[in-house]
């Protein structure tokens, strides 16, 4: 087994940190021995990989390979305690004596456990990192287990439906598009509600991608997290709210997600894994058909030119100009999307290689991944190449150095989507059969002239992203009671995005775009993290242990983009900006910095009762040149009551019980410069030339402060029935104070609507219950069955809006109600005889935009040790979705059979959806209940339009989905040998298999702009696809 003993052999990048901290010298300098052994599953006897064996009081640790073997060299002689941990298994500690030069074998057989008090979490805490010491819930997902069998290509797919309180919405079926993540509801009304993401302690760029360059794709912009390869993740820790996220400072109120990448395995031999995957992507969707009554022009059998004859209306009955004979007119239909086969079966091909191994005091993890995905439309692709190198080195028992570099190159090709005249659905669902022509020219059933599948496919929306995330961490334990962790890292990314309309003579696009139109965007974003945490432990007496921690964190973000646009090409092949006849350019720049100092004191009594207090002092450049420092405190309590003597052998079925509670504060900072009163450069014309000018931009707010999220949570972890059933119950109450509202300004002030200033007004409260139940009903050698149930409730309410009046006419923010709730003039009564539909005279609540109850149920059955069946069902209820697609097709550009076919709906339903359609009559009539009404019509308007009455189209979005079913088979070793492999597994799985819902649109999860906080509209968005995945894993 090789040993690195010379600093010169180590990665240069690590030397910087290592040289500072590692005065302790090399392994050879100490009297030490070696510990090795194997770890197996107690029930089945199979070897367990990825088990961490940590030498207590040192930085030494080993990880088992696939054969369950580990080896740790350089273990200081004397009394040695090994801590053996793996997610899903009961932790084991073993103490023994090691003499210098000795090689000791220590084997372990781990039993599965649903009670996870001994697991170590590294997020959101300082001091003792065992879960039992944490007062706030930090959830952990074993990604390596999930990725082994489930069809997961993106971070969001890993996260979806696996942690109570974490809501992931896959907003469309567009491959590579952004998905919204919400933890415990919305923490803010105006600021981002996306959680912060850290990779190995380094903050990275998350959220929606390059929106400025991908303007045409509607809301289906790229997602930054799609650029990460989840197969490189070991685990994910979710810090849900302020109670746990205080140490992450003034920008963490929406939660924090920590990704821990796979590490090299010290003491194990080199092994490789090859994973091959093929997905079939079924659009699983039939676009609705367009309808229209033939007109006199359309039934003309001999139009000029003859090619313009409508093939659908020949022989039909013309609609008279006054519309009186509409009943006798011919209703014809057309479905251009189906006719031209706009949607197709897509596929994904992915190959992942990993190599891992190490010497006696170092380990490495290498990976390479290539995945190519063709989506369900002709111009949708999501290709990703990624590689990762992780290296760890333990030069002494006092020091461990970890370094990792992950690099990805991602290509997104996205179709125009959503509210977009160039989208497939925008073009296909809003076209009319009246424009069908024999010669196929003109609209021919599409929304735009010459806008067919070929024309839409020819529009290029490409984005290539190069991303490198580098991390380095030094763990230094100079004394057994004093630990230090120093992390530095960076996330560099660069986008090259392009949008291109080819020059054409058919006039397929709007106006001058037909002359050839190019936009190029170059965006670069850099984030740097420096993080230090020091912890000292001391005992006073045999029972009481103290942990004192202190540290700091420095964050720096810089974003710059340059966009150039050109119009007018000579030929399409010469399609650079320089080749265009008129050009323009724009530039953007954002810089944000944050500094925080943190400290924590934790006391534990007999390792059963833990109490901690701590805080962080923080400042952020968002608040102008005079940064304000503010303090964020926290406190928590954890009590493993079941380990008390009086508990005895347990209270009947209840074997383990931990009570916990936590309180803490974090914040959320606005965008840089939000405090400033600003103008925007804008030219004016003087003497025939453009001169530099300025127009109002933002009134700013020089007294701006960060939002302050205050949360307390309380709950218990219990193990029952021989710890075969684990229950984790948490009640949380999160209040965002100093709520930053982007209070809409009246336009008459002259500031653009999107520059409304932030003001610290109001209070938003989210509260709910999170329940996780994990059960192992059967654990036999040949049969094991795991089940998991997750439930979470959410009750959101704006508690206070200060002096801000309610605002928003579709998604409204109003005191006492959910943020961004749907409102409308609600229907009071419908009289089918008089056709009078009475509606409320003011905007009233229809329902919330976020689910009030989410749940998921998974079952994992393993038969004969090698045959595994997994199923995941999830559901969301309580929320509403604006079915704007139907609204548009029924009331604005009328294309829907529902509206046109007189027999499609009952008289009542017609009135409910469209109001009174009798000419000269008000569609809807407002009741007159305001104190000032009845009165003048300017004060008490009588008529309400279909735009204001949304009862029929803001629809319940409750659903249950069979999200995932997979069947895996671990091939016998002999069969694996045919591939020259040690082991081989084969998996077939399906995603998005069935949906139960009453929602009338394509899919209740659709969001036409997932990047917005509360915009929950379904408007011409491609629905999620169904996937069938075939996957093979080979280990060599």
């Amino acid at each position, binding site marked *: 087994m090789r040993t690195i003993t010379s600093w010169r052999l180590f990665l240069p990048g690590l030397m910087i940190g290592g040289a500072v901290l590692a005065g302790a010298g090399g392994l050879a300098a100490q009297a030490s021995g070696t510990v090795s052994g194997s770890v197996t599953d107690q029930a089945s006897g199979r070897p367990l990989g990825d088990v961490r064996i940590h030498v207590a009081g040192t930085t030494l640790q080993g990880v088992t390979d696939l054969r369950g073997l580990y080896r740790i060299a350089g273990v200081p002689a004397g009394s040695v305690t090994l801590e053996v941990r793996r997610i899903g298994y009961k932790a084991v500690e073993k103490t023994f004596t090691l003499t210098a030069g000795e090689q000791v074998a220590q084997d372990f057989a781990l039993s599965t456990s649903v009670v996870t008090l001994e697991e170590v979490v590294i997020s959101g805490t300082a001091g003792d990192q065992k879960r039992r010491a944490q007062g706030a819930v930090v959830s952990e997902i074993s990604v390596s287990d999930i990725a082994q069998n489930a069809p997961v290509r993106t971070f969001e797919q890993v996260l979806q439906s696996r942690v109570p309180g974490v809501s992931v919405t896959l907003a469309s079926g567009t491959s590579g598009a952004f998905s919204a993540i919400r933890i415990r509801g919305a923490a803010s009304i105006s600021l981002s509600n996306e959680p912060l993401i850290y990779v190995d302690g380094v903050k990275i760029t998350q959220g929606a991608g390059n929106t400025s360059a991908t303007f045409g794709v509607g809301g289906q912009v790229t997602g930054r997290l799609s650029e990460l390869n989840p197969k490189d993740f070991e685990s994910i820790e979710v810090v849900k709210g302020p109670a746990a996220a205080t140490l992450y400072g003034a920008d963490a109120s929406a939660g924090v997600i920590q990704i821990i990448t796979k590490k090299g395995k010290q003491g194990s031999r080199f092994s490789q894994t090859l994973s091959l995957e093929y997905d079939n992507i079924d659009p699983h969707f039939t676009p609705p058909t367009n309808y229209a009554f033939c007109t006199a022009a359309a039934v003309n059998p001999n139009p000029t030119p003859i090619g313009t004859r409508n093939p659908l209306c020949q022989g039909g009955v013309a609609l008279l100009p006054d519309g009186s004979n509409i009943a006798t007119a011919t209703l014809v239909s057309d479905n251009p999307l189906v006719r031209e086969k706009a949607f197709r079966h897509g596929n994904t091909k992915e190959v992942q290689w990993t190599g891992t191994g190490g010497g006696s005091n170092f380990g490495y993890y290498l990976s390479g991944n290539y995945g190519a995905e063709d989506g369900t439309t002709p111009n949708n692709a999501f290709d990703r190449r990624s590689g990762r190198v992780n290296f760890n080195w333990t030069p002494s028992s006092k020091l461990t150095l970890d370094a990792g570099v992950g690099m990805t190159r991602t290509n997104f090709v996205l179709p125009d989507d959503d509210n977009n005249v160039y989208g497939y659905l925008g073009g296909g669902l809003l076209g009319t059969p009246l424009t069908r022509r024999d010669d196929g020219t003109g609209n021919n059933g599409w929304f735009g002239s010459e806008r067919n599948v070929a024309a839409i496919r020819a529009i290029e929306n490409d984005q290539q992203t190069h991303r490198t995330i580098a991390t380095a961490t030094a763990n230094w334990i100079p004394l057994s009671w004093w630990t230090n962790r120093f992390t530095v890292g960076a996330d560099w990314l660069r986008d090259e995005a392009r949008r291109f309309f080819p020059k054409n003579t058919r006039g397929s696009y709007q106006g*001058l775009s037909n002359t050839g139109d190019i936009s190029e965007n170059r965006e670069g974003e850099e984030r740097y993290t420096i993080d230090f945490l020091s912890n000292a432990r001391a005992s006073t007496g045999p029972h009481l242990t103290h942990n004192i921690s202190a540290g700091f964190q420095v964050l720096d973000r810089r974003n710059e983009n340059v966009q150039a646009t050109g119009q007018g090409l000579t030929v399409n092949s010469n399609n650079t900006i320089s080749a265009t006849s008129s050009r323009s350019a724009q530039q953007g*720049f954002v810089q944000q910095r944050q500094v925080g100092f943190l400290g924590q004191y934790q006391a534990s009594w007999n390792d059963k009762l833990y109490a901690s207090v701590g805080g962080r002092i923080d400042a952020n450049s968002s608040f102008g040149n005079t940064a304000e420092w503010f303090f964020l405190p926290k406190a928590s309590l954890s009590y493993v009551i079941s380990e008390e003597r009086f508990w005895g052998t347990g209270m009947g079925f209840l074997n383990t019980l931990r009570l916990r509670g936590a309180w803490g504060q974090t914040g959320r900072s606005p965008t840089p410069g939000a405090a400033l009163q600003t103008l925007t450069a804008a030219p*004016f*014309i003087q003497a025939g030339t453009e001169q530099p000018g300025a127009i*109002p931009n933002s009134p700013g707010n020089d007294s701006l402060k960060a939002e302050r999220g205050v949360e307390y949570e309380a709950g218990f972890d219990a193990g029952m029935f021989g710890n075969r059933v684990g229950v984790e119950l948490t009640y949380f109450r999160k209040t965002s104070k100093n709520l930053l509202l982007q209070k809409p300004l*009246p336009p008459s*002030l002259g500031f653009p*609507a999107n520059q409304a200033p932030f003001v610290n007004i109001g209070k938003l409260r989210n509260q709910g219950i999170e329940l996780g139940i994990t059960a192992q009903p059967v654990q036999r050698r040949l049969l094991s069955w795991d089940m998991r149930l997750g439930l979470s409730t959410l009750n959101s309410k704006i508690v206070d809006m200060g002096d801000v009046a309610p605002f928003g*006419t579709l998604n409204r923010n109003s005191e006492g109600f959910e943020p961004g709730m749907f409102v409308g003039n609600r229907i009071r009564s419908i009289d089918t005889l008089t056709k009078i539909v009475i509606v409320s005279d003011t905007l009233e609540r229809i329902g919330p935009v976020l689910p009030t109850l989410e749940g998921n149920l998974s079952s994992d059955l393993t038969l004969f040790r090698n045959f595994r069946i997994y199923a995941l069902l999830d559901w969301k209820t309580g929320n509403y979705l604006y079915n704007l697609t139907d609204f548009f097709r029924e009331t604005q550009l009328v294309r829907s059979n529902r509206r046109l076919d007189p027999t499609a709906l009952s008289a009542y339903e017609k009135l409910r959806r469209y109001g009174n359609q009798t000419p000269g009559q008000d569609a809807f009539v407002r009741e007159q209940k305001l104190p000032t009404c009845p009165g003048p019509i300017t004060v008490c308007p009588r008529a309400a339009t279909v735009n204001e009455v949304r009862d029929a189209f803001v629809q319940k979005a409750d659903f249950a989905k069979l999200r995932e079913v997979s069947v895996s088979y671990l091939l016998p070793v002999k069969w694996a040998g045919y591939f020259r492999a040690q082991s081989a597994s084969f998996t077939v799985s399906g995603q998005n298999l069935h949906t139960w819902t009453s929602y009338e649109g394509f899919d209740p999860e659709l969001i036409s702009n997932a990047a917005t906080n509360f915009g929950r509209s379904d408007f011409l968005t491609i629905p999620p696809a169904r996937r069938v995945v075939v996957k093979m894993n080979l280990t060599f």
Partner: protein
Amino acid sequence: MTAQKIVSRAAATLAVSAGLAGCTDYLTVKNPTVIEVTTLDPIADAPVLANSAVQNLAAAYGWLIMYTSWMAGETDVAETFPTRNEFGRRAVDPTNGSLSTDVWFPLSQAAASTYLVLAKELPTPETNLNYQKAHFALGWSFLFMAEDFCQGTVRAGPPLTTAAMLDSAIAHFTAAMDIGNAVTAAPDTAASRNMARASLVGRARAKLQKGDKPGALADANTVPAGFTYNLAYFDDLSNRTRVGNRLWQFTADRGSMAIAPAWRVVDPRVPQRVAPSNLLPQDANYTVDRGLPYVIQDKYPGFGSAIRLASKLEADYIAAEATGSAAELTLIQARRAANGQPAYGGPTDDPSVLEEFETQRGLEFFLENKRLGDLVRNGAAVRFVPVPGSTYFKPGFSPVGNQTCIPLPITETDNNPNFHP
């Protein structure tokens, strides 16, 4: 406390202070994408702000012309967008997003931005050209607001009636004229005089709209012969929405406007042409629905085409209307002759003359944002306006409404505290 402790604690305090001070510097970041107000010199940069305010007026003017031309029936909405078709149907809902962003906001910004100048103490106010430009832009903003909107407000102020808006317009036109007439130093003289004359035409127009016919006549008569004041535009791809001619943009780039059937006349004052094959209506079903070819305006054939704001010709029309039928008839005959039309031979009763007068005025100032104000002032005499209750020419839309002015958007009435006393 020992000396050692004192020294060590002082050192620690100094270290922490230095650290925090360093952090404060670290937290000072660049913000180069915007102009911080504090970086502008109120006096030296006043011309920048004043000229920008005039440009804001020019940008708003283009929007207003397009939307009011739909509402007053000068053009058809050749778009599918329901919000824009509401203008074509004279049934604009306060929740209409286009109303807020395209119509009300640009005009509001034009008005509000003048206060960046007017609120400053500038030297020699009686001849300060920056003040003149600001008053000029604000006067026109108030006038357009009064003619086109049912209510008005500026800078989140209280609701303004039409009369109040016209009074404000008159006051600011007067202020602009006073400065322009006081300026004597070349090279400012010609430009400021021209602006003063344009203000004079604006004031006459405001007075006429208000019903002050003697005042309108007096002002109109003092406008010198041959005077024309245009707002300038420029073809710049990166700033088309600000400095480009909006009418051409929405003809060439968007396909939003078609000449309404009633205005498809052979008259040099209404340049138009059947759209070439590369210029298509955004609503590709337009020709089917209308049963007519797609005819586009040719009055503004490029992004750099200027738009007339004020002229002696308009002053003549104001004067004639303020004087009465005889003067109107005289002007009718003169203008018909000048534009190749036969002499008017119809009835000469007041309503008939006024109707023909309004038609000639409509031809004369086609796509110049006058028609809606005319409709308010002269009602039925203004022809070719979409008829209330009639079937809209596009299937699937509700019948034409009866609005004669544009309501304020809900974004204003909801968010302006003065609308909720």
